[in-house]
């Protein structure tokens, strides 16, 4: 550990020390409870803050990509735009349709936000800065992630509106079919790290050879797993090429058509927090969690690296949203079952082979050869099967 001097470790552990300092004021038997409450308060404050920032960054980023400025009227450079949006969503009338099923209509956003916040419990934000160091942390995250579909269904069904019902059915079908590749692509990291606990997975990637870190993404199966995980994450949180459920051009606003005011803002919050938590897990599993990208940069605190990577992930999400058109429902399903699933199964095979082939270049060649071959073949078969491809055009004589 290059940063041996106490200052760097203190700076790195500043939040942990802060927590211990506050805990010291309380009687001994109360301290663990206070510790967790502080952790929860930190998470509930930090991530919605990032959500507010992301809404501005998203609109400004999309604007910049489209040769125009993003919002810049509210506050300097438009920074206070989320405050304006927040006040707007709070003061807007909360209309509940007459035929809607009031109880379920109200519960849907609540369940969504609770489920998403629970997902942050096992996310390692910095060196020994994780709210609950569970032995099966990853399994907990996927279990909680699976329950968000229920809230989407509740929203769609309870509004008794055929658009939102269609939107909800689509969203649930999409989330279920992308859950499988999401889990399988993360199993790869678990196999090599040997544990389901997120903290152990990050520690397994913390070593350096020369100045390059041992991140899983720099191995053939790691890169394939990361790519599959990110694509499945996009579909899981209904983002960019897969944002079908709220495809404005077809079904008005998908499952949250009948929501307005603060409930709509809750859905919005739920979607973004889902995006952060799944991006956080992509970072934990493949990008070395809070590890520094280069050994010489070790002095920078661990939580700073985590949030830097998180913002890079957010920028990537925005970048995709600004560029790619949307996939249709059946193509989306085909892509999940006919491309993502076989690739992730194959990735498991390659990871297994990686572990048993032992050190040396042979496993690198084998891994990357198999994956590239599969990617090329599957890609061509998928495109050929639906006879898609570039076309040449003739001119009238």
């Amino acid at each position, binding site marked *: 550990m290059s940063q041996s001097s106490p200052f760097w470790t203190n700076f790195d552990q500043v939040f942990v020390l802060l927590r211990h300092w506050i805990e010291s004021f309380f009687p001994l038997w109360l301290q663990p409870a206070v510790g967790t409450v502080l952790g929860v308060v930190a998470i509930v404050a930090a991530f919605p803050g990032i959500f507010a920032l992301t809404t501005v960054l998203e609109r400004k980023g999309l604007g910049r990509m489209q040769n125009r400025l993003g919002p810049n009227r509210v506050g300097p450079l438009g920074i206070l735009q989320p405050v304006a949006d927040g006040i707007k969503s709070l003061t807007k009338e909360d209309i509940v349709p007459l035929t809607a099923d009031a109880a379920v209509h109200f519960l849907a956003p609540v369940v969504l936000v609770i489920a998403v916040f629970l997902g942050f419990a096992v996310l390692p934000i910095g060196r020994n800065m994780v709210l609950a160091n569970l032995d099966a942390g990853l399994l907990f995250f996927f279990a909680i992630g699976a329950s968000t579909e229920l809230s989407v269904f509740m929203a769609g069904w309870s509004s008794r509106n055929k658009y939102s019902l269609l939107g909800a059915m689509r969203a649930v079908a999409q989330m279920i079919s992308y859950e499988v590749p999401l889990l399988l692509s993360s199993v790869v990291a678990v196999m090599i790290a040997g544990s389901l606990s997120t903290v152990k997975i990050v520690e397994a990637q913390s070593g350096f050879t020369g100045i390059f870190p041992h991140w899983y993404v720099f191995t053939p199966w790691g890169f394939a797993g990361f790519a599959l995980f990110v694509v499945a994450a996009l579909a899981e949180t209904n983002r960019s090429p897969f944002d079908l459920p709220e495809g404005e051009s077809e079904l008005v606003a998908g499952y949250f058509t009948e929501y307005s005011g603060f409930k709509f803002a809750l859905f919005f919050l739920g979607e973004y927090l889902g995006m952060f938590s799944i991006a956080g897990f992509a970072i934990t599993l493949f990008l070395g969690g809070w590890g520094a990208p280069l050994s010489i940069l070790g002095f920078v605190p661990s939580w700073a690296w985590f949030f830097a990577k998180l913002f890079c992930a957010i920028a990537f999400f925005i970048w995709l949203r600004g560029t790619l058109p949307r996939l249709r429902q059946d193509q989306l399903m085909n892509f999940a079952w006919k491309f993502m699933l076989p690739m992730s199964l194959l990735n498991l095979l390659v990871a297994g082979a990686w572990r048993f082939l032992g050190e040396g270049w042979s496993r690198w060649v084998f891994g990357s050869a198999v994956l590239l071959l599969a990617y090329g073949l599957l890609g061509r078969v998928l495109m050929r099967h639906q006879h898609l491809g570039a076309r040449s055009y003739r001119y*009238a004589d």
Partner: protein
Amino acid sequence: MTATAFKTYRPPVMEVSEAGDELLEVAMGPHHPSTHGVFRMDVALDGERVVKLKPVFGYLHRNHEKIAEKASYLASMPYTDRLDYFCSLTNNWAYALAVEKLAGLEVPERAEYIRVITAELTRIQNHASAIGFLMQEMGASGTPLMYAFREREKILDLFEELTGSRMMCNYMRFGGCRVELPSGWLEKVKTVVSGLPHFIDETEALLTGNEILMARSQGVGVLKPDLAVNAGVTGVMLRCTGVNYDIRKVDHYGIYDRFKFRVPLGDHGDIYDRYMLRVLEMRESVEILKQALKDIPAGPIMDPKSKIRGFRPKPGEAYGRIEAPKGELGFYLISDGSPNPYRYRVRPPSLINLTILEDMCLGQNVADVVLIFGSVDIVLGEVDR
């Protein structure tokens, strides 16, 4: 409907399909975010697939043709801007062409060149916007649309400098053009035209190879050549099915014979072909513009014989048509010698291209209905008149 009765309200179901399961009737529009203006489609869905589609339009009917019968020939000219409000200059040209045929006026050389230059500029900005709107429906959150609008703004500024207004140009007169080119205008056109190939390359790089675009548009909303010809479809929609019919080559109107340009043809007749053909036509228009700008002569811009007021063409009828960006735009006029036409009929390419919307949408996915409708590239001002 009392509140309690309303509670047991079930959405209206049109009828039961042969398979026995209920059809879900969805009305898309007239305020649907993707329709180009006010247009409604009553779509009956069997699950996700379209079983029946009834287009309903007329929300923007302004009685243009009846008003034209009561107004002088000149008074209808500004109203032609409002037909296809994306391409006002080609509308003007079509109307002027019809009246010139009716009254037997000759258009001086320079005016002919100005007409070709303004028409081709209009074609480029229309195709760019059409592609932009199509991508917007596909969900690309406006990026291609914003690039298209960036170029369109440059072209509209040129129109504003020439005619005084960006979209409502009212520039052509019977027998020539209204205003001489302002000094330095041709240089500005040259700079804009030289920037266009870069824009087209940028759009192609962003979209042509995009696998998602291919997946969403290849093989979707296919139009057969025979159906297209029988339905009277014209323009890009017709050429996508492989039928070689471009009025600039067929009718030889204006001075298009002097320019060397090619007419791209598609083979599949689906949405991807319509997108690609619009891109290729933009490239051809750039070629035409380069040639026209190179050898535009000096000289008068108005036929001396044409009169502004008290214009009374001799009795008779005439049909003038041009290759507007949306298809064959024609004006059929009957004159009875009085200052206002006896009959004034517009052949709207948007409306006629729209008649086969149902045939293209049957069996397709509901998400594709919006795309197919967008790929036809219609403007409601022209459909409803």
